[in-house]
């Protein structure tokens, strides 16, 4: 089998000494992998379960005990392919019982005896290897059967169509009936050594029972009336001729001269078709077909032809096919007769009208008459073929129908390799979570990045994980998973991750995994986390840029308005003031001293505005030389404004810069931005009209008073 490749054994024990005693006892013949607790063991299993020949498992271990490992092995189906021997000082019958229920194959109690350990290990591996081989064998068989069947039917439907009026259904019926009868016999006695493989072989070969008819003159073959005795003796030769043709199909089974002789005397069409039988697999098949062709007209009492064999001298294959042939010939229409009903046909056979058959065989037929009749009705043949294939594997595996096939394992191996490759290449934190056991598996890169073990238990209570991701983010992930459905399993969120004293933004994408049960159970999640910190910071920077006036760095009107509205919404009872500021005679400053100086004036004013208020107050350049400040006050607003006002009038390069300010209070005009702004505007014009270089509070007597007279100075 595996040649010189050493079989791998996983030893799971928390005591290093116990592991090394076991490893030493098993010696050089095996490749030993060690795990010091259940979590490590599950990690190793999840990576290479299909490569392991055996697990030696301790019960009492930290983190995850032996039963936990068995639970995970059951959950993931590993227990089907990987045998487990429990190794423990525990001998309580409850423990032992529970372990057997969870699928362990054997127990080894401490203290270890070198011989016992070695013997148990060898036996267990052998037993499982046998089972694995058996799975492979049955698969091959199914494959072979499929190949053969389609080829045979191909050949024979041609021959039958070509040579006589029988429908191809006869061949299907004979095959179906043969398989059924053989199974009934096998259930009754093992006298004939009928294995599932043998049954499949005989029923497949049964399709060739009349192959010799190719050589019979069509006039005789399709004659509607009774055959003369001469014609009948020609007809009889289809048995021996068929047998000879089959002989010819197997190289070395006959001499070249014999072969040529046969090929000359029989039609080339038949020879061609026989040449298509896949001989490398087909020797047994051809030999079985030979028996059937030659002896399917022999009878139990020795009165059949061509050789006059009697009783069990006739191979069981030929006995069964002859009965199936007779039954179907009777119940189907022929050129020389109509179809005979089932009951009548059965009676004729029992009465010996078609010759004597093996009494045991007749008993099988009678006992299952109804089953047989329904089986052949309609076009049930194909279905039976399918059932037949299934039963081969089922019988061989004794109910282990759901076992994973080698092919599936190979595919899984491949997928796993692919996954690991991409996971390693992607520099993404990938993770997997299972509910039972509550366990997280991280990709190698993820484990390195986060400084967490590749596999760890109980993530919701892992202090380290909580310190990295934060309890709230973890709860949020759990909540989202719980709210997801099999139809909408995906979820994306942004999480601030704290690593090595640094905080970075990650996007966490998860998909919940559901069982195939009805209703589906939530069994875990798959996910990955991508570092989006740079991206997010760039975005923030852009946002900030978009909300600010590039010259002064103050907020622009749109974003200031948003923030003001938001502030008033959050604190509806706050005392707010909006001060609109306009630089006096700015147009003249610009004209006389140039735009660059003008810009410096704007920048200086902005700087002074910011210094005059708290960080929480909002400073804005609304456009041109117009600014405003939005602030919350608790005490004397007038004094506050006096202070601000004196701060924002200044001298730059010998030039005195003054401003006019209009102030509106939320308490007077209401907590609406538009109203505040409008009132402040009115007050500003009042200040301008009053001679500039001053500030004015809005009051109702101003009405809408402002005109354009002072604007633009």
């Amino acid at each position, binding site marked *: 089998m595996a040649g010189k490749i050493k079989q791998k054994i996983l030893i799971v024990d*928390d*005591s*290093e*000494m*116990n592991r*090394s*005693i076991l490893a*030493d*006892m098993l010696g050089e013949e095996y490749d030993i992998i060690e795990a010091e607790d259940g979590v490590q063991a599950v990690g190793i299993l999840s990576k290479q379960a299909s490569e392991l020949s055996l697990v030696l498992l*301790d019960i*009492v*271990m*930290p983190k995850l005990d032996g039963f936990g490992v068995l639970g995970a092995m059951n959950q993931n189906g590993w227990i089907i392919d990987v045998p487990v021997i429990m190794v*423990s*000082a525990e001998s309580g019958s409850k423990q032992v019982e529970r372990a057997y229920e969870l699928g362990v194959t054997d127990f080894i109690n*401490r*203290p*270890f*005896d*070198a*011989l016992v350990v070695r013997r148990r290990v060898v036996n267990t591996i052998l037993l499982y290897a046998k089972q694995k081989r058996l799975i492979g064998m049955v698969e091959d068989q199914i494959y072979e059967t499929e190949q053969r069947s389609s080829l045979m039917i191909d050949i024979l439907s041609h021959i039958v169509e070509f040579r006589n009026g029988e429908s191809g259904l006869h061949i299907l019926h004979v095959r179906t009936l043969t398989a059924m009868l053989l199974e009934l016999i096998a259930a009754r006695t093992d006298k004939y050594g009928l294995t599932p493989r043998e049954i499949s072989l005989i029923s497949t070969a049964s399709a060739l029972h009349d192959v010799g008819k190719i050589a019979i003159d069509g006039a005789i073959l399709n004659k509607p009336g009774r055959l003369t005795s001469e014609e009948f003796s020609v007809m009889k030769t289809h048995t021996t001729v068929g047998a000879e043709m089959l002989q010819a199909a197997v190289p070395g089974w006959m001499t070249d001269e014999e072969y040529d002789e046969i090929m000359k005397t029989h039609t080339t069409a038949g020879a061609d078709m026989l040449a298509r039988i896949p001989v490398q697999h087909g020797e047994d098949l051809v030999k079985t077909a030979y028996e059937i062709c030659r002896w399917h007209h022999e009878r139990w009492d020795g009165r059949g032809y061509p050789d006059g064999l009697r009783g069990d001298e006739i191979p069981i294959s030929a006995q069964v096919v002859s009965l199936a042939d007779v039954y179907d010939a009777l119940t189907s229409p022929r050129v020389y007769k109509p179809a005979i009903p089932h009951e009548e046909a059965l009676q004729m056979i029992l009465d010996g009208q078609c010759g004597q058959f093996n009494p045991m065989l007749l008993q099988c037929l009678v006992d299952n008459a109804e089953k047989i009749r329904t089986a052949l009705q309609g076009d049930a043949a194909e279905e039976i073929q399918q059932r037949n294939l299934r039963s081969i594997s089922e019988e061989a595996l004794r109910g282990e129908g759901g076992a994973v096939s080698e092919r599936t394992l190979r595919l899984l191996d491949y997928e796993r390799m692919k996954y690991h490759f991409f996971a390693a290449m992607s520099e993404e934190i990938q993770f997997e979570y299972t509910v039972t056991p509550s366990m997280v598996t991280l990709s190698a890169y993820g484990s390195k990045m986060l400084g967490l073990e590749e596999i760890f238990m109980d993530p919701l209570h892992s202090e380290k994980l909580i310190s990295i991701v934060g309890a709230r983010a973890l709860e949020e992930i759990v909540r989202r998973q719980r709210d997801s459905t099999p139809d909408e399993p995906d979820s994306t969120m942004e999480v601030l991750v704290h690593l090595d004293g640094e905080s970075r933004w990650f996007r966490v994408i998860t998909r919940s995994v559901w069982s195939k049960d009805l209703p589906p159970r939530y069994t875990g999640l798959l996910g990955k986390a991508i570092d989006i910190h740079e991206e997010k910071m760039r975005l923030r920077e852009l946002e900030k840029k978009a909300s600010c006036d590039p010259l002064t760095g103050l907020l622009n009107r749109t974003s200031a308005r948003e923030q003001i509205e938001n502030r008033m919404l959050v604190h509806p009872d706050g005392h707010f003031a909006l001060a609109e500021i306009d630089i006096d005679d700015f147009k003249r400053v610009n004209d006389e001293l140039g735009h660059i100086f003008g810009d410096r004036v704007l920048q200086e004013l902005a700087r002074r505005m910011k210094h005059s208020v708290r960080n929480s107050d909002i400073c804005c350049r609304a456009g041109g030389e117009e600014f405003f400040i939005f602030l919350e006050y608790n005490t004397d607003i007038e004094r506050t404004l006096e202070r601000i006002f004196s701060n924002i009038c200044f001298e730059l390069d010998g030039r005195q810069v003054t401003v006019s300010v209009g102030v509106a209070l939320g308490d007077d005009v209401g907590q609406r931005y538009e109203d505040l702004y409008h009132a402040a505007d009115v007050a500003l014009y009042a200040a301008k009209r009053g001679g500039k270089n001053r500030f004015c509070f809005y009051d109702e007597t101003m009405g809408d008073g402002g005109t354009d007279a002072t604007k633009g100075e």
Partner: protein
Amino acid sequence: MTLRDCYDKLGGDYEEVLSRLRSERLIQKFVLKFPDDGSFETLVRAMGEKNQEEAFRAAHTIKGMCQNLSFTALGRSADELTEALRNGWSDEAPALLEKVSADYARVAGAIGELKASL
């Protein structure tokens, strides 16, 4: 000092271990390794912290190793402590720990002598 002498001194059964492990070389290897196992220290610490679960596991591990090496005396006292801790904290446990500690000291001493004589 022979391996057999060492076993006599530490309260073990040399005949028994030889019949199972079948190799003097292997037995000696494991005996010399025994003091490197940290389970005893873990046991003493866990008992001090009254951490029943961890103490149980450590006692259990010591018991298992003793069974494998046929350290009969220490194995027996470790077994008694294991059982006392199996279903929760027990007031007998500290006294049993004393016994385990004494047996452990005896084992460690004998192995130390063996090592020195090699």
